[in-house]
């Protein structure tokens, strides 16, 4: 009796909070029919925005994966970092989770913006950071920073260093040890981390909005375009782009499920 009540309530919450909005975005983008939807996403600014988002996702995911794995290995294994320093660094990793994305963007503008020393230096060298792609990549890197580290660290802690030590005692080179011993155990953690990073960089909004200046056909990404369309009361067009993003997210969600299952097996 109670059981049925709880299950029904769960279904109601899911229906109202998650399923109904998802359906609404699908139906909403067809409000003006197929043509309205196609027009919404084939506008030059939509195509450009989707391309910008694509570039950011690829660059950020690649950098965050490499640096994230390396940093996780150092934070777990390195003997050249003192214990106290390690603990401090370890707690600093979570910082971006606690920082509002808008503040994350503001920090980059404050340090590298056109009115700062570093910003002016780069600009004189003909390299724009803020209100350009490099700043947007930096902002997204900041926001996604903990995702990979936090996926890989627990796995490394769990498997311990014995196998790796054995391999290097037996004379294996460090790269060889990494590929043959460490990589197979952290693999699924890394893949899960990649999916999370892609999802986060695809959807990043606040930090990118502040850093990019949201200039149409230049620094506008898919999410900031949705925002601008809504502000301009162009809801159907916003819906089209939002639907593309939502479809990607649902795909990523399926990947997440798959990676999670594999992660648990290993």
């Amino acid at each position, binding site marked *: 009796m*109670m*059981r049925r009540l*709880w299950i029904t*309530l*769960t*279904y109601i*919450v899911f229906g109202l*909070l*998650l*399923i*109904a*909005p998802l359906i*609404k*975005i699908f139906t*909403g983008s067809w409000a003006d029919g197929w043509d309205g939807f196609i027009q919404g996403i084939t506008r030059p600014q939509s195509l450009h925005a989707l391309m910008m988002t694509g570039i950011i996702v690829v660059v950020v995911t690649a950098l965050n994966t490499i*640096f994230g794995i*390396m*940093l996780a290995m*150092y934070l777990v294994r390195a003997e050249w970092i003192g214990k106290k320093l390690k603990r401090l*660094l370890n*707690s600093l990793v*979570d*910082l971006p*989770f*606690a*920082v*509002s*994305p*808008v*503040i994350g*963007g*503001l*920090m*980059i503008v*404050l*340090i590298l*913006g056109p009115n700062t020393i570093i910003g002016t230096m780069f600009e004189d060298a003909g390299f724009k950071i803020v209100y350009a792609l490099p700043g947007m990549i930096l902002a997204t*890197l900041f926001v996604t*920073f903990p995702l990979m580290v936090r996926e890989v660290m627990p796995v490394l802690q769990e498997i311990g260093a014995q196998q790796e030590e054995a391999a290097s005692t037996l004379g294996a080179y460090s790269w060889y040890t990494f590929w043959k011993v460490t990589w197979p155990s952290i693999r699924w953690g890394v893949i899960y981390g990649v999916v*999370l990073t892609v*999802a986060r960089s*695809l*959807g990043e*909004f*606040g930090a990118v909005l*502040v850093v990019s200046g949201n200039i149409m056909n230049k620094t506008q990404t898919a*999410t*900031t375009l*949705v925002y601008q369309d*809504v502000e301009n009361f162009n*809801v159907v067009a*916003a*819906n089209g782009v*939002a639907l593309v993003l*939502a479809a990607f*997210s*649902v795909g990523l*969600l*399926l990947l*997440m499920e798959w990676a999670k299952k594999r992660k648990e097996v290993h």
Partner: protein
Amino acid sequence: MNALFRGKGWSFGFRSAIMLYFVILIVLPIFGIYTQSFSLGWTPFWESISDPLAWKAVLLTVKLAVIATVLNMFLGTMIGWVLIRYRFPGRRFLNSLVDLPFALPTAVGGLMILLLLGPNSLVGGLAQKIGIEIVFHEPAIVVAMLFVTFPFVIRAIQPLLEEMDKSEEEAAYTLGATRTKTFFSVIFPTMLPGILSGAMLAFSRGVAEFGAVVLVAGNIPGKTLIASVYIFGEIESSNPQGAAAVSVLLLTLSFLILWTVNLIQGRRGGQ
């Protein structure tokens, strides 16, 4: 010998590169924001945060985030429990759906809420008839915060429930405890650390949320303007010092929360 030396040189360079990346990307910006907010001294800092619009925005954010967090604690506990303990059709589907708010761009989340509850929608129209305003008012902000923080509590209590020793629960039944009594004296204490740390994370995410809220809040200063949108406005109107001052306020709050979560989790790990 030569090869060894070269190897060491490489690894030194590698280590420095990774650490430098860490410091430049994470540590330096935080310092930057604290120094910027005090860049003109104490008085302007104090003026920035004592601006009624500023502290009203911060208070409103905290108030609405608390409401969303409390709702989340109840819903999250119930859903986490149902998804682990009961077997019913669609359970696995719902369980995967929990992470949707993490996978979905927050701006899309905001747009969905706007479409679903806006004045032209079924729900929004009904609510308006009985005199409740949702979109561009406080309820919509709470809904947006609830949406983006939905997974935290559920994901925090699920592992605890899975690990839980069933024998304790059975012992309680054998000793004649009622279902309610067993729940509150055996099961609930096991879930509590998860509920608390999940709630803390949800709260700090709620306070920081921007994308979903900015689209549904209407952003009327002093009424529905929350802190992160206020900061955005200050940046747009070229007042980085004022933006930094309010940011420092929010950041300090978030750090305290993160630190508390670490304490809770650390204590659990120690037991």
